[in-house]
């Protein structure tokens, strides 16, 4: 499974969906230790080997598929790990090579376009041998495969939008060399239905990609109930938590501005940054320039266990994202009874009406919210108790039923 929101969301959704539909999940990289009841999972990392999760090699050999342009070296990288191309991408055909391509443990990666091309070739070939009613593709990496299958079989196509290139890189998404934008556009254009993870993402897809409104059927992500706990913070300083990749999309520069404004008035606070990303150096530089480096902790990438420990101590969860299709980590924070201050340009604000939100550039307002949460005792309990109710309203089962409704609307 992929890291970040996409993998978590797919896991939750598919698990719930399997109660209502026969789900066959084909993913780039499967994990034999991670099974889902009633769901057949096949991973391209088990291409041409034996086992239930393995993929048989077809009799007619695979063909090389996509060709992708080189990406300029200065291209800022919004993905969890490296993306970029040493050469043009073609689909791989040799079983060993395919297995190796998807067995690196590294999602995305410098040869992402080759992975996408190979995935399209392998999966579309598999689809010809399978019996199914609807194609449901999650995010751009699977769209070429899905479009190809639709073209070959005529089966209805649903594309699920967890994130858009315009969220990840902003206006640069429309750059000539950016093939991701093209892939997303084509996927949504060819789809019979588009399921964005929020109304916000629908608006983005309509505005930046010009996709017709009638195709959309937003389905919010949910969160499974979890055991939560609190760890008393004895440091004497309040803790504001930023949890996520340090990339353009997550708005780290707005965090610095907010922190600076807050610290002028209220110095007894630490900003804890959990995550890595291509804007890390830039972030550290800005913090130094503002002379607030002693108020920042850069913890790097944290394991799930450690994330929970930090959530259990945090006083405020802060997500100043420039464009956040959903923002599952805000739900995780809210589940830990941490009051959330989040960007209005986010999907999660649609399901957390009792979080505080402001436009991502409105750093004084963010600072004002954080100041209030750290100083005024009346607000925390009201926000937390109402948010608990908001979270209790969310369930993957409801999301799955919404997805079923989309299928039904296609005559499935």
């Amino acid at each position, binding site marked *: 499974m992929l890291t970040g929101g996409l993998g978590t969301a797919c896991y939750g959704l598919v698990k719930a969906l399997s109660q209502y539909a026969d789900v066959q999940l084909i993913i780039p990289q499967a994990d034999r230790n991670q099974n889902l009841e009633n769901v057949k999972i096949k991973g391209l990392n088990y291409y041409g080997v034996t086992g239930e999760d393995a993929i048989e090699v077809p009799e007619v050999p695979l063909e090389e598929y996509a060709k992708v342009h080189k990406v300029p070296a200065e291209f800022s990288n919004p993905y969890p790990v490296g993306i970029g191309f040493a050469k043009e991408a073609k689909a791989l055909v040799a079983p060993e090579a395919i297995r190796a391509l998807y067995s690196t443990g590294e999602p995305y990666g410098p040869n992402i376009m080759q992975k996408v091309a190979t995935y399209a070739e392998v999966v579309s070939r598999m689809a010809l041998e399978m019996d199914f009613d609807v194609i449901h593709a999650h995010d751009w990496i699977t769209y070429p495969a899905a479009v190809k299958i639709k073209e070959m079989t005529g089966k209805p196509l649903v594309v699920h939008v967890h994130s858009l290139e315009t969220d990840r890189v902003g206006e640069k998404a429309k750059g000539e060399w950016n093939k991701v934008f093209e892939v997303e556009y084509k996927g949504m254009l060819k789809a019979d239905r588009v399921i964005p993870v929020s109304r916000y993402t629908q608006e983005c897809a309509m505005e930046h990609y010009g996709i017709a409104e009638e195709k959309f059927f937003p389905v919010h992500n949910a969160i499974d109930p979890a055991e939560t706990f609190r760890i008393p913070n004895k440091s004497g300083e309040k803790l504001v938590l930023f949890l996520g990749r340090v990339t353009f999309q997550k708005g780290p520069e707005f965090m610095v501005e907010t922190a600076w404004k807050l610290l002028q008035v209220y110095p007894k606070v630490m900003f804890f940054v959990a995550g890595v990303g291509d804007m890390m150096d830039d972030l550290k530089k800005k913090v130094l320039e503002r002379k607030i480096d002693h108020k920042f902790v850069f913890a790097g990438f944290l394991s799930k266990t450690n994330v929970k420990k930090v959530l259990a101590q945090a006083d405020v969860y802060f997500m100043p994202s420039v464009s956040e299709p959903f923002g599952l980590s805000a739900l995780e924070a809210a589940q830990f009874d941490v009051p959330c201050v989040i960007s209005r340009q986010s999907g999660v604000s649609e399901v957390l009406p009792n979080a505080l939100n402001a436009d991502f550039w409105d750093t004084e307002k963010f600072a*004002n919210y954080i100041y209030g949460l750290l*100083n005024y005792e009346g607000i925390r309990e009201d926000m937390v108790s*109402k948010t608990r109710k908001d979270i209790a309203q969310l369930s993957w089962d409801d999301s799955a039923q919404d997805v079923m409704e989309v299928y039904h609307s296609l005559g499935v």
Partner: protein
Amino acid sequence: MAAICFYFQVHQPYRLKNYSFVKIGKDHFYEATALNVEILNRVADRCYLPANRLMKSLIDENDGKFKISYSITGTCLEQLHRHRPDVIDSFRKLYETGCVEFFSETYYHSLAALYSLPEFERQVKMHEKAMLNILGVKTKVFRNTELMYQNGFADVLDNLGYKMVLAEGSIKYLGKEAANQIFIATNQKTKILPRNFIFSDDIAFRFSDPSWSEYPLMADTFASWLHKIEDPGGSINLFMDYETFGEHRKTETGIFEFMKHLPTQILKDKNFHFATPSDLLKIKKPNPPVYNATTWSSWADEDKDASAWTEDNMQKDALKKIYALEQPLLTLKKPDLLDVWGKLQTSDHFYYMSTRYRNDATHQAFSPYKSPYDAYLNYMNVLSDFEGLIGK
């Protein structure tokens, strides 16, 4: 003879400006003056002036048989006096007809009755004085903020010389007694006029609701409903915001037309007449039913209690902090600070912080904030600065 008692509440608060935490300790001016004046002008032009004109003509046309009452808060009176003397003049003219009564209330439209009786008394006296000085009116009957009332409160009013008070006519407090009569407080002294909330809300809320089965409501229909009421020997009390006319219900809804025809329609039945609470005070009837409110009642929302102002932690915190300033302020004896304190007690500030009624259309229409959290944080920033001024 059944009486119809119309009373209209006239109120405008001093809304706070957007007060970010960076202003604390630097900016000691809290009011959104431009916004407040803008709203005042709008309401004056859409409601107060045309409604006063209408009421005046109805009184003239009916040869004094049409009677009404008002309560104007100190914060509204003050703003009108400063920015719209024409509205003050028109209220004065109404008073001169002899068919209009004005009530007493807290100057700042506050919840002082719930939190500090000395402060409550100070504000009632202030209001009495303002009514006399600005409108030339001597008040006799009391209405508390949002019609809030509870049993022990009658004695407080009695000590201040008030023989009658207005309250919500919810079954919670009236018991099995018919609503349209004059009740008595548990002290067996103070008379209580309960609001007929069904008929009042027909005009104040449902009037412009197309999904209501009685929409559109005409004056003759409404009068016929009143005429059908079995006369319990009291009065049918129609209490509502004056802003119902032209502000909450726009002119296009026909609310003015409705009111224009209502007195004639009601007076068609010779058993009906209009009365002011002071008229009703003269009625001597043995063994009136007892109005029993063991906790604070109000005319708000479905619960008819004080929860819309006092239930949330944010409200409790803000109220606790504002009333904690009483002693330091009394020691300081600075009139300007006392006035700021009073304005910060205006109940509207706490109403905006209510989370339970966040999605309620009425609450939303009143609040200048996007959320109850914004209302609380803005208020607390202001309060932090004010505490600094007092040296607390």
